[in-house]
């Protein structure tokens, strides 16, 4: 696993662009809170700037009292889970690890797997998401943030490349 880039700050969604095409898989590690006035919002990703209705997902989650599963298709972005927002317990951030497999392959639609969520000492959610981007293009850029586009200060995103070779320097 090799670090590629990190983005931090507040406000609108951030974008990793010109992603190196030399790795086998990608892993996006997300630490996120939203400034939206509600208790929680969706964290999401988009690939190659595509805001068309080309995303689908399944999820399995637990909210502290029950387990649930659902799915949706023809979405304009790919949710990766719920992040805490403005009225949630202060200083609590959501954590998400998004694995994006075979991102350079131009013969496959792209599939993701995300484990994440947040706990706010009496509320919160843990979830496992599978995501699909119906596009065979190699992924060269990734947008990520809260769907209200109001990431709180302290938010950070880190992108890593997963290689099948020994990492021994250039």
């Amino acid at each position, binding site marked *: 696993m090799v670090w590629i880039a990190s983005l931090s700050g507040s406000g609108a969604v951030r974008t990793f662009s010109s992603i190196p095409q030399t790795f086998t898989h990608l892993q996006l590690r997300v*630490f996120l809170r939203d400034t939206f006035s509600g208790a929680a919002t969706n964290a999401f990703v988009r690939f190659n700037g595509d805001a068309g209705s080309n995303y689908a997902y399944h999820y399995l989650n637990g909210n502290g009292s*029950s387990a649930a599963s659902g799915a949706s298709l023809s979405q304009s972005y790919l949710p990766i889970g719920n992040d805490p927002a403005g009225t949630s317990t202060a200083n609590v951030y959501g954590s998400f690890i998004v694995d994006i497999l075979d991102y350079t392959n131009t013969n496959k639609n792209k599939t993701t797997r995300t484990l994440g969520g947040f706990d706010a000492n009496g509320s919160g959610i843990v979830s496992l998401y599978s995501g699909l981007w119906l596009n065979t293009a190699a992924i060269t850029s990734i947008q990520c943030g809260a769907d209200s586009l109001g990431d709180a200060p302290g938010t950070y995103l*880190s992108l890593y490349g997963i290689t099948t070779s020994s990492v021994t320097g250039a």
Partner: protein
Amino acid sequence: MGVYELSGAGSVKTGRTLYTSMNAGNQFGAMVPIANFTFTGTGGSVTFSNIDQSYQDLRLVVFVRSNFAGSQLNLIIRFNGDASSVYSYTRLTGNGSAASSTREVNFTGVYPGIIPASTSTAGVFGSAAIDILNYKNTSTFKTCISRVASDLNGSGTTDLGVQLWRNTAAINSLNISDVNGDSWVAGSTATLYGIRAVSS
């Protein structure tokens, strides 16, 4: 393989900075082992102390079986020696027949999941991976995401969880044990990794 630093906007810098090595104490790559314990059958609680503050995230990987007299019990993790009631968790559990979700608040430690003990199927250990993002940040509470599993050939559980430590201090030590403080079966292991970012 070279590694290029990207600009703050995520695009490749003009005039790339090529890191010819990701060497971190003779370890290459972003996931670096910090410390490892292999248990011999005595001693249970283990503390990783003086944790290096140069990483972005931490990952704890545990493969353990408890000498507790029952069949299974919870792991517990505490940070910076804090045993006060400032921890909570939300968990999603599958036991082979149903999925359920539970929550605890104001607990005295993080409970990521269930591990096997003495009366469980012989030779079965529980595996756990716990990610602690932004562990050195001093303005946010600390959140873990975890997965813990053990299959006992007819029984067993798998847990996904998020855990909260309501403290903004940087994590500089981490203690792991079962909830009773029992010893670990010989062959149990606990390894702490740092996930590095070049800029940190």
